[in-house]
């Protein structure tokens, strides 16, 4: 199963997708807030979102799973 990992530590600011959504490669699926910056998180490849593993306000560390794909 393909996963989308957090590239850096931060707090989940907004989530732009739900389980079941189709995403395209390069689509912004989430925004983290880290170091007072908005960090857009982009899907690396196209696919259907299986699970969203974080909620708005959650702390995520570098390498944590944000989304999984079917």
């Amino acid at each position: 199963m393909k996963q989308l990992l957090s590239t850096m530590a931060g707090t989940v600011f907004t989530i732009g997708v739900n389980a079941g959504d189709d995403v395209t490669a390069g689509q912004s699926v989430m925004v983290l807030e880290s170091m007072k910056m908005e960090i857009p998180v982009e899907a690396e490849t196209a696919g259907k979102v299986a699970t969203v593993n974080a909620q708005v306000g959650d702390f995520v560390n570098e390498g944590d799973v944000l989304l999984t794909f079917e």
Partner: protein
Amino acid sequence: MTEKTAYNERLEQKLTTIFAGGHSKYHEKMKEQNKLFVRDRLALLFDDGVYLEDGRFANSEAGDLPADGVVTATGKVGGQQVCVMANDSTVKAGSWGSRTVEKIIRIQEIAEKTRVPMLYLVDSAGARITDQLDMFPNRRGAGRIFHNQVRMSGFVPQVCLLFGPSAAGGAYIPAFCDIVIMVEGNASMYLGSPRMAEKVIGEKVTLEEMGGARMHCTISGCGDVLVTSEQEAIAEVQRYLAYFPANFTEMPKVVEPKAVKEGRSLEAIIPENQNAPFDMYEAIDQLIDEGTFFNIKKLFATEIITGLARIEGQAVGIIANQPKAKGGVLFGDSADKAAKFINLCDAFGIPLLFLADVPGFMIGTKVERAGIIRHGAKLIMAMSSATVPKISVIVRKAYGAGLYAMAGPAFEPDVCIALPTAQIAVMGPEAAVNAVLANKIESIEDPKERLKFVQEKHQEYKEQIDIYKLASEMIIDEIVAPSDLREVLAMRFSAYSTKHIPQPPRKHPVYPV
């Protein structure tokens, strides 16, 4: 026309055998992999395909080892004399015997004596185990190749084009080069092959996972430029060399200036909200001569951009934060990437342009455990000790040690320029107000009152760090309208071109690693 004598016929026979390389089945295999025969690579690389070869008859008496699996040559690339060693993987998989190693050492010695760039076209399985005593541990064994590379580092440019494997000890050839260009799908670099890893440590992985070109160009940082074909690799090295002098005593050439790429103005590109991302590449395009950007480590540590370019025909090395990737925050990898690039430019007289939009170095347990401080120290040391002309431009924010890393005022840039959007501080307004007034903010119960208080304090803080105040205090040297920046940079780089700073009397600094 050569006269036909028995002597000449023997010579011709010998040459025909040598020029043919290894067995035809290996030539077929190369074609399947979209690889070129070593002599075709050299014909593409050198101006008009012309070169002088040394050690051509090496091991020719062995019969099946033409040129002993390596062609060493000197010729011109873009008008510049260069020395080249190129493995022939049709001959025992390009492996190294004693004469192979001796040929490589000799061409390095010629590059050093004639003070010209040294290119390594690598495609080799590594040592010939059967010949190890003749090529591995001795004084003029393979170790000497790396010893020579180290001595020549910063003396002449050294470039590696990785066309195939670069295994075990051989993997240090690319490691000691200034840059490594890798062909995706064919190039690989590893100390132990997947087969060896399975036998020795029990790990099962593919060659690409272990040491493929894309992995090295995106994750390990051992690769600098990822290309899709050998032809592209050769075109890239030709483009790269045009930015460099033949050796450290000469200056980079100035070429005919070109206009900037058509596009949005810097005012339109750079958002006023300090926290909103934008694409720094688009901003760079508005400062440089169109089509001159040579991106180094484009896919690795993308939060910092390092590349060669030209402004009004003059070569410059650009180090720029990329707010679009990880907010432009500096990490261990970004620091390493920028440190090596700065060392490269400083060694060969290429002036440096810093474009700062940086929230600082990353914080948190993950990066502290990875030693972000010692990695950051490498960047600050490289930037600080560079003596080429250095211009620092504060594009938007430059917070904390981020200001230091990007050649802030204390590090003797020749000028520190701010755009009107610049903001220099220990930390941003939000972080600062939280840090200083956390208790007071907590104690305000009414949420509206609390928000009002915080906003007032943000405003006060912003006034304290107002860029005109910093200019008035002579902390920064100049505030420039974005639309004038390119012209100002061109004039200033030209003005500083005679800069000379004598080295302090010591052997060398103690480098952080």
